[in-house]
């Protein structure tokens, strides 16, 4: 079958079973858009900024587990997309992003809207391609999808010059693909797995350190099973929230800078750390020389470069967590008696009782934590929660009762303000039966506010809840703690839009909330409405995220209470 490059793109997407593409057209990618116009295989959502298109594809991928797809044009279209690529790369999210490029004959001439796109995207993606001939396009697109979702997932960028999108060639789409230079390891070494089971059986204070890999691998059920049969308590990273389920008595909560006291103490006092797909981020470990210093470390990861990157690993296992646990659990059942760890569990429970995750509620001011708890009580598992970045993000991670993986969509590694709203748009497209909520702050929400138009036009009823404290709250908190309250460029209270009118001007619904009753009322109306909503909640201005391990501090030495 002979097709031109643009038709090849459409046909490849059809064969990859792509249902939604997010994007923004422009000169160099117009041929592709002309074919988008003619087809009915997938829906195209026009965002109002290329960054938002990538975040929406990212949110779609996180909620569904499928590859997210986005189209952007050359030059500024592509450079706007870079933050989105970097964001997906560091969080290991499968995506294929196709950008237009100036015609091959003009590459290198500093043509209009020309930029070295593959040169820019190289450190922000798992792999990238500049397509020089349409005959290579079927193979490249097949590889792009395969690379994006296999091994440690990640975004793949395909840059297609405009003349290639018009060039006709034979379309021979490979059914299967093998690449001699890329063969991820899925199965764990069985001898090493046996050794690990022995190490676990010989430990007295083991802890499961569950990371985002558990979500990517689809290993959540097995991780829960692991905890259940062994009686070993677990902590979750930000990226793993929901894996254990918050009603699980073995979950000690989130670990790290704003982790629970019991979770951080568990890490500090464990004699064996069983790391299941985390990457030892500095926001988790704190000061490395003090991190889990009594523990031997088991690390299961599909990416060999993750193992031993930050800390020494006593028992490395390269493999897909799901496979490794399937092999490990039968052995574990025979060797481990969950009663053995009773006193360890009791100790951690005591830690949790001494310093539970809590805040002091207030009659006058709405506390931001209350809002999140309230959304959780009201919507629970019916909602998928996206966030932006900052205090509201940490409070959501702490206080929302997540019951399953892929229920929490947040920018973990890159910490991208402006991620939440477009991600929530992608989430709603992936899971239309769920309520898609974006919890944001008055700082972050303005970073992709133009997406109100996308949500309105494409009838995507995302509910934005702004925890409005008139500050860039997280930076303000650091200024309070570490900069002697010099609030440099963080006070936003002097100049804010009217968020209600703003939402309305885009065709959405806006609510201003000053009391708890008003919040309940607004949330109810927002859930019932079929347009995009914005709930502007006036919250306590100076609330801090606690506990806190200062950057470079030790996990067992948390700030539990701020004493001005």
């Amino acid at each position, binding site marked *: 079958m002979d097709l031109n490059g643009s038709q090849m793109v459409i046909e490849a997407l059809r064969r990859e079973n792509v249902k939604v593409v997010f994007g923004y057209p422009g000169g160099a990618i117009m041929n592709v858009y002309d074919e988008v116009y003619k087809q009915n295989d997938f829906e195209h959502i026009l965002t109002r900024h290329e960054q938002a298109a990538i975040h929406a594809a990212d949110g779609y991928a996180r909620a569904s587990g499928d590859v997210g797809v986005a189209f952007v044009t050359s030059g500024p279209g592509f450079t706007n997309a870079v933050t989105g690529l970097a964001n997906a790369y560091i969080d290991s999210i499968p995506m294929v992003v196709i950008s237009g490029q100036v015609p091959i004959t003009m590459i290198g001439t500093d043509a209009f809207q020309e930029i070295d796109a*593959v040169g820019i995207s*190289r*450190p922000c993606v798992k*792999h990238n391609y500049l397509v020089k001939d349409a005959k290579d396009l079927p193979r490249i697109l097949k590889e792009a999808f395969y690379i994006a979702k296999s091994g440690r997932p990640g975004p793949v960028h395909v840059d297609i010059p405009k003349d290639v999108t018009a060039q006709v060639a034979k379309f021979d789409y490979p059914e299967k693909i093998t690449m001699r*230079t890329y063969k991820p390891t899925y199965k764990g070494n069985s001898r090493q797995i046996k050794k690990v089971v022995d190490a676990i059986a010989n430990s007295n204070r083991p802890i499961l350190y569950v990371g985002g890999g558990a979500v990517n691998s689809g290993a959540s059920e097995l991780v829960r099973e692991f905890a259940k049969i062994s009686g070993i308590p677990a902590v979750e990273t930000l990226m793993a929230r929901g894996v254990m389920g918050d009603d699980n008595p073995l979950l000690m909560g989130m670990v790290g800078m704003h982790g629970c006291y019991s979770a951080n103490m568990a890490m500090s006092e464990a004699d064996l*750390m069983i790391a299941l797909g985390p990457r030892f981020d500095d926001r988790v470990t704190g000061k490395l020389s003090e991190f889990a*210093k009594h523990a031997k470390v088991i690390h299961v990861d599909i990416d060999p470069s993750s193992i*031993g*990157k930050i800390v020494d690993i006593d028992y490395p296992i390269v493999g897909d967590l799901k496979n490794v646990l399937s092999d490990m659990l039968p052995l574990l059942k025979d060797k481990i008696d969950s009663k053995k760890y009773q006193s360890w569990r009791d100790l951690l429970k005591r830690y949790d009782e001494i310093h539970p995750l809590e805040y002091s509620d207030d009659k006058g001011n709405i506390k931001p934590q209350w809002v999140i708890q309230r959304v959780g009580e009201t919507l629970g598992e019916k909602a998928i929660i996206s966030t932006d970045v900052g205090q509201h993000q940490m409070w959501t991670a702490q206080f929302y009762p997540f019951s399953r993986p892929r229920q929490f969509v947040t920018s973990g590694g890159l910490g991208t303000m402006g991620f939440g709203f477009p991600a929530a748009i992608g989430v709603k497209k992936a899971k239309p039966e769920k309520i898609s909520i974006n919890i944001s702050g008055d700082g972050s929400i303005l970073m992709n506010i133009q997406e109100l138009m996308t949500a309105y036009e494409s009838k995507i009823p995302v509910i934005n809840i702004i925890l409005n404290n008139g500050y860039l709250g997280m930076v303000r908190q650091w200024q309070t703690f570490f900069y002697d309250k010099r609030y440099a460029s963080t006070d936003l209270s002097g100049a804010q839009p009217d968020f209600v009118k703003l939402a309305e001007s885009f065709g959405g619904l806006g609510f201003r909330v000053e009391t708890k009753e008003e919040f309940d009322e607004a949330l109810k109306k927002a859930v019932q409405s079929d347009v995009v909503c914005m709930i502007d909640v006036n919250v306590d201005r100076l609330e801090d995220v606690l506990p806190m391990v200062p950057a470079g501090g030790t996990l067992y030495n948390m700030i539990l209470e701020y004493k001005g």
Partner: protein
Amino acid sequence: MKNTIKNEEIRRVLSVIVTNEDGVLSRISGLFAGRGYNIDSLTVAPVPDTDFSRLTIVTCGNERVLEQIVKQLHKLIPTYKVIESAEFVEKEMALVKIPLNEDFNGLDAMLKAYNGTIANSGENFIVVMVADNAKRIENFLKAIKKYNPIEMVRSGSVAMDI
């Protein structure tokens, strides 16, 4: 958890076999630059009768850094193999241009000692060539200075594991 890594800097020669395709060199040099790894020398050439290229990279770092370099190189999609064997033949080439008005007394003996030859000559100069391991090339280049060379060019190492 213990941190047993020694901070001692180790020199290492890596042979990296990659698909011979556009941009692969920038992926590798970009990886080194972006992650703050050192490149002491780098040579690239096609592997005969295949569609692979071989990069020979001389780098240095502590154990953890070297382990990461190897793993990160592996992680690049076009990388087929990373060879870091301890035993290999390592050779580097140098060309040195010496003016003809110099007194060449002892040059012959020196070239012999370093397995060198005269590669070319012109009206006013000769070009000598040596091929040896990197350390000896360094010594040679020090020694040859007494002939006041006009120009010296080093190739970077190539290596073959044995």
